[in-house]
């Protein structure tokens, strides 16, 4: 009887797997429909197809998280029921699947409203390609986190690069955007080559291609070089410096929902890769952790320092992605140092903070990109110097942007604080137990993270204040109006999660800790104990107190204002009567003092011809400041210039006369012959 029951269960399991495979095939086949549908239905079809996959994968992830024993879900995707593509979903994959699903669905909902204005301007084919690429970006990201086999992984990685390239060049009529897109594609492929080489080196030693080979490969000996190759390959996707150069260009070029998804989840695929590699490492953890920590700290500082100087709101957000990737990386680095010092609270809090920050960043960054998309559509500009006073005309958008800003600065009681707090706790938890070297490293990281936090506040008070507060600086800002519901309601989804994680962190931290515990088997010998942490409950408590006090004061204020006279008057101009909005502080003037200090790093240049002494009646002058990206200038622009120089010299050979080319071939053959004869080659 029992035997029969088991048989039926197995049968059901088999049928369910088959059904899932068939469903996935149907979705992929039906995706062609996007091309034939009417403009208005393209988004709905994409949404329906995406939702099917989202439901299937979410069920898998929840199964994995509910399983106490950390057994991964394994699925074979094939029509015949055997062989096919093998998907392995452990808790790490499951976490990423949930993040991808959440952000991609909100992104697509937002796209429905955002792209509506393009339906009349763009050809149907453009829109179709866009949604098609969106669907495949989504599927490829899911594959990236579920496939373990090397070749399949790299193929998924490649699809992801191409799909996102297609999404970025949505406005390819503008030459600059096409150029940005191509530069993005090139840099993605450089990253791909790093990964290919790294996988091949591992394959040569172990005979296996893919992530599963790593644990055998890293078992003995020192393999820091391969780790660095992986770090470079995944780092380009993640946007760690000095591999970040594609990021500040590609994000502003893409439509807002695409920037949201790319910044929210796609760059995290790089972090996923790094985590996969890190969780298999068994030697050299101190060195590897130190490298990750150092690069991440620099990314964090550099990202936010550059962000402050940007006037393009999406470019500003893009630099903040670099900063946040840096914060995530710091968590990972601290976790790795924890492994090398064999301190479990450092491991759990470090990795935990980093991994939770992945979720957090995907929430507030997509929210910020969506609301800046609202601003862009309402005012047709991304330059914050031309905006101002939008809060009165776009109240909902500005509240969303404000929530996003507070969260990204890591301020309580929102979600960004929780992950940064975990990372801080990881750093502080074992300070007294570390050796000299370790404590110096950790305290530098603490000071760095504190500085990053301060700089982020500087940046977002500027971004929010200049864009949404004060008076409109130009006509386009004055004429901006609130967007319709289709664009606003999707933004509520991240807002709800941001508040929930901030107020009740324990609910979200526990699965993350389980995730880490499940991945530590190779790293930690001996029993793995998730540290009991009562702090999170206390954080909820004090945040609750804060909200209660605030409400009380506001209610009291409201009652008070009823009893006293309240007047409306112009802003106090310190006695100056003829005030106009162009006199307001601008983004440049807000950052002026800072720029003065940060010039050695950011390399801001001024364009001005000074007034000479002999000029008695000075002619008209112009003044402009430029902030490039010093890293990009030194590692991309300079080498490119240099190679142009060399190649131009070499171009002497290219005469265009067929006789010369035959001569070259002849010389080459002669040389080959001679060298073989002399036994040199």
């Amino acid at each position, binding site marked *: 009887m029992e035997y029969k029951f088991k048989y039926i269960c197995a049968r059901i399991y088999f049928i369910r797997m088959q059904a899932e495979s068939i469903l996935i095939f149907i979705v992929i086949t039906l995706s062609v429909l996007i091309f034939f549908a009417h403009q208005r239905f393209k988004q709905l079809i994409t949404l329906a197809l995406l939702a099917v996959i989202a439901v299937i994968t979410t069920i898998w992830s929840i199964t994995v998280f509910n399983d106490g024993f950390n057994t991964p879900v394994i699925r074979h995707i094939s029509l015949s029921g055997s062989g096919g593509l093998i998907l392995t979903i452990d808790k790490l994959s499951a976490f990423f699947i949930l993040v991808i699903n959440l952000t991609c669905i909100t992104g697509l909902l937002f796209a429905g409203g955002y792209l509506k204005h393009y339906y009349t301007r763009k050809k149907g084919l453009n829109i179709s390609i866009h949604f098609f690429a969106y669907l495949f970006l989504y599927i490829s990201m899911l594959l990236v986190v579920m496939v373990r086999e090397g070749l399949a992984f790299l193929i998924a990685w490649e699809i992801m690069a191409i799909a996102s390239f297609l999404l970025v060049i949505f406005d390819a009529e503008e030459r600059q955007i096409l150029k940005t897109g191509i530069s993005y594609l090139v840099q993605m492929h450089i990253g791909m080559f790093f990964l290919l080489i790294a996988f091949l080196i591992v394959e040569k030693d172990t005979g296996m291609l893919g992530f599963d080979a790593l644990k055998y490969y890293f078992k003995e000996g020192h393999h820091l070089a391969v780790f660095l190759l992986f770090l470079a390959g995944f780092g380009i996707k993640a946007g760690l410096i000095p591999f970040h150069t594609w990021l500040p260009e590609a994000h502003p070029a893409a439509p807002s929902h695409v920037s949201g998804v790319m910044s929210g989840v796609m760059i995290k695929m790089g972090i996923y890769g790094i985590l996969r590699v890190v969780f298999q490492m068994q030697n050299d953890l101190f060195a590897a952790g130190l490298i990750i920590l150092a690069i991440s700290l620099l990314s964090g500082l550099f990202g936010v320092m550059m962000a402050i100087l940007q006037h393009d709101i999406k470019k500003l957000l893009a630099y903040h992605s670099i900063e946040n990737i840096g914060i995530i990386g710091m968590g990972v680095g601290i976790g790795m140092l924890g492994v090398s010092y064999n301190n479990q609270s450092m491991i759990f809090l470090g990795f935990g903070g980093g991994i939770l920050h992945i979720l957090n960043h995907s929430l507030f960054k997509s929210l910020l990109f969506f609301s800046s998309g609202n601003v862009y559509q309402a005012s047709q500009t991304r330059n914050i110097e031309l905006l101002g006073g939008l809060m009165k005309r776009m109240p909902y958008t500005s509240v969303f942007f404000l929530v996003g800003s507070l969260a990204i600065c890591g301020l309580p009681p929102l979600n960004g604080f929780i992950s940064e707090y975990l990372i*801080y706790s990881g750093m502080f938890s074992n*300070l007294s137990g570390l050796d000299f070297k370790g404590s110096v490293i950790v305290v530098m990281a*603490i000071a760095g993270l504190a500085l990053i936090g301060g700089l982020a*506040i500087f940046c977002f008070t500027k971004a929010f*204040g200049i864009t949404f507060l004060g008076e409109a600086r130009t006509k386009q800002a004055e004429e901006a109006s609130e967007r319709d519901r289709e664009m606003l309601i999707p933004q509520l989804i991240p807002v709800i999660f941001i508040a929930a994680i901030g107020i009740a962190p324990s609910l979200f931290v526990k699965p993350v800790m389980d995730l880490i515990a499940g991945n530590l088997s190779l790293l930690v010998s001996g029993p793995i104990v998730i540290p009991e942490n009562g702090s999170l409950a206390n954080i909820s408590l004090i945040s609750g*107190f804060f909200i209660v006090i605030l409400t009380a004061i506001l209610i009291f204020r409201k009652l008070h204002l009823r009893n006293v006279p309240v007047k409306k008057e112009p802003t106090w101009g310190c006695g100056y009567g003829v005030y106009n909005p162009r006199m307001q*502080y601008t983004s440049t003037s807000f950052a002026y003092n*800072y720029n003065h200090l940060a010039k050695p790093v950011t390399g801001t240049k001024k364009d001005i011809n000074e007034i000479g002494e002999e000029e008695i009646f000075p002619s008209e002058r112009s003044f402009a400041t430029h902030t490039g990206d010093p890293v990009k200038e030194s590692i991309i622009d300079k080498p490119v210039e240099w190679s142009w120089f060399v190649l131009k010299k070499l171009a002497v050979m290219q005469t265009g006369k067929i006789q010369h080319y035959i001569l070259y071939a002849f010389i080459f053959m002669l040389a080959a012959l001679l060298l073989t004869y002399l036994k040199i080659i």
Partner: protein
Amino acid sequence: MRLLGFLFLIVSALLIPGFILRIKSIAAGRKGPGIWQPYRDIAILFAKGQVFSNTTGLIFQIAPAINLSCIIAAAMLLPFGRYGSLISFDGDFVYFLYILALGRFFSIISALDTGSSFEGMGASREALFSMLAEPAFFILFAALAIVTGHTSFSGIFSEYTISGDHNILIMTLIGVFVLFQSSLVETCRVPVDDPKTHLELTMIHEVMILDNSGFDKALIHIATYLKQAMYGLLIYNLITPFKLNLVFQIIIFVLVQALYAITAGLIESFRARNKMNRNPKFILTISAVAWIAFVIILILKK
């Protein structure tokens, strides 16, 4: 008993501002207002009506309230000697600093909400200076965490003086210096900022609240008083021996707060405000000194 810290904080917040005023007028040889003058000011502000700028909106209305509640929430985390704080957990000083930062965030954007270039200038300065001041506190507490092995205010301060280590004296001196200097930055006192200056161009904090009036302005004043008292309480916690009984603790507390007020008042009377572009250097020096404390601890302990 856990309420003690909070209560003493409120009481000292009531007295310090007036005390500083008295010190300043004595030092300047003026008759000066009485010790209760700040409270008369606040009472007047509460009674007054409000004027709002046409430019301002929601942010300007809620910012002072948010700022004050942030400071009250932060005050709940501070212990009073061995009597503990209302709420205490590992890493609570991270929460302490970040909730203060939340209040600052709102006061900065509230200044930008008025659209006045003067207030924008103040906002920019406040954002810059407080950002530079941030690392000092963290480094100091990292050093304290190494000494005591704890990562909460209560844990650190309860272990600190009973660790029986004589090197603690150096640490305490540096700690008091760092806390005092950061309090000058955070509460906008000379030499970083001069609340009594007459020219908007040279102000930091005052210029940010040019447009606030009535109830809101009273909230802002109360918040500043509380902040001042909080730093006094932190310094007290750092230097008070753990095992003393309550009476002595209270006496020391009163002395510390009085000394704090006297020093701040005397500095204000006899020192000129820094040139604005010297301020970053002044603030970064605090971090540098905190680094020294940290290095000393490292050398002694490791």
